[in-house]
């Protein structure tokens, strides 16, 4: 990014003022629509400002992994679609998409938000597999947090199809929901100069120095973390970033449709 623009950005952030007139710790306006994809077992479309992500859940019955014969299989995948921003190209997922999917995957896995043992049909033979796919429709920054939120809402929205013992009847929906016991909320705090911001737009995001992504539970405990960016952070930075993330997670939690 142009150094002058970055300089100006840091100047204005140090006065707690952002290009779109938000304060550093403000989120953009949020729009949510759940159950928007009829072919998916669960789905959600989430907008933070201009950033828009759609997440879908597909369920299937599969053979469990040998080391976890009674646990459902959880998969999270994402792709940076060239439709969502001119900077992306087609082809297999790059490292950004892989990181996004794996960080979101860990937030669900490590929080144990889904009771995976309840999704065992026949030990060692048949368990439900949950595939969550996250697709950005418009990328104007903060894709990871928006994607994680969409994925969580899609999981909460998921309804089981009928299963007759041999195949899944995707067209016949039951009323059974996924056994979800926790709600991990993913928040990334970006350090730009000496300022800390959440929910950056693309312009802000291209000039960050360091970032910390936290997945946070209702009791404010952390269930996963990931540092990013080319510069190191001090423990004091981490303290500030975690406090902002906890506060932001509480705010986002209120937006979950009940």
């Amino acid at each position, binding site marked *: 990014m142009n150094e002058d623009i970055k300089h100006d950005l840091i100047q204005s952030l140090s006065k707690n003022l952002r290009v779109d007139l938000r304060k550093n710790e403000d989120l953009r306006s949020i729009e949510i629509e759940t159950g928007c994809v009829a072919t998916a077992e669960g789905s959600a479309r989430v907008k933070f400002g201009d950033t828009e992500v759609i997440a879908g859940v597909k369920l299937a019955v599969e053979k469990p992994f040998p080391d976890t014969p009674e646990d459902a299989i959880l998969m999270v995948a994402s792709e940076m679609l060239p439709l969502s921003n001119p900077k992306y190209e087609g082809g297999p997922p790059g490292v950004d998409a892989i990181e996004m999917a794996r960080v979101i995957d860990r937030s669900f896995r490590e929080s144990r938000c889904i009771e995976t043992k309840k999704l065992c049909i026949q030990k060692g033979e048949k368990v439900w597999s949950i595939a969550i796919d996250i697709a950005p429709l418009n990328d104007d920054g903060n894709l990871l947090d928006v994607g994680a939120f969409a994925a969580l809402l899609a999981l909460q929205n998921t309804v089981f199809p009928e299963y007759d013992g041999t195949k899944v009847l995707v067209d016949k929906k039951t009323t059974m929901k996924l056994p979800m016991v926790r709600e991990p909320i993913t928040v990334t705090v970006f350090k730009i100069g000496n300022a800390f911001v959440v929910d950056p737009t693309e312009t802000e995001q291209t000039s960050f120095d360091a970032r910390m992504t936290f997945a946070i539970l209702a009791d404010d405990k952390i269930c996963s*973390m990931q540092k990013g960016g080319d*510069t190191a952070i001090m423990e004091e930075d981490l303290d500030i970033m975690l406090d902002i993330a906890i506060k932001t997670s509480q705010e986002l939690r209120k937006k979950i449709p009940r």
Partner: protein
Amino acid sequence: MTSTVNNMMNRKVKNMKRTDGRSQTDVRPITAKTGVIKKADGSAYFKIGNTTAYAAVYGPRNLFPRFLQDPKKGILRCNYNMLPFSASDRVRPGPSRRSREISMITEKALLPVLDLDAYPNAVVDVFIELTETDAGSRCAGICAAAMALADAGLIMKDLVAAVSVGKVGNDLVVDLDGVEEHYNENESTDIPVAMIPSTHEITLLQCDGIIAKEELFKAIDMVKPAMQKIAEVQRNALKEKYR
């Protein structure tokens, strides 16, 4: 993990002792060497417990294809790889989602100590190979890579030391081994950390598992002496080559 091992772990952890007799703050035995790969511009071997990493540095050298070049500074490219026989189940050769993510965070962990401004359009390649693993492989890889970069004569602010810290049962422990990492069906919390030892700046921080804020900061405090110890081993290994 078998239930017998799990029961044993339960008992051991309750007695505040670890399966291998370490205290909560002890790291596993470390062996470190430099210059282990003669063809490379810099290389290192770092073994912690039963986790063994080799790292080789090639470069700064010309970067091709050209469009990857940065005309302002050299780039760092790390490649983390587990050899097929390095874990209890065979690891499929070739890059995986996991190895690509770890390669990327390894770059980020090392970049803050490097100054690549003097090498426009060039690349510094770091190849990290794990020959055997028992948890903590990304940290061992970072330790080996930092030593190999220093061995290659690159200008560095300091070394980078890395080790994991975590919560097993109710105890905070430094340098989790495989048994601890999988304790009670993976219910333990694993926090890989990399630091610049002289300033305690954090260059890598991840967390898998649940932990409260106060515990996290307690864990980071606990890991600092371990970082100093690792850095000392790294420094000694670098000096050893010239003795």
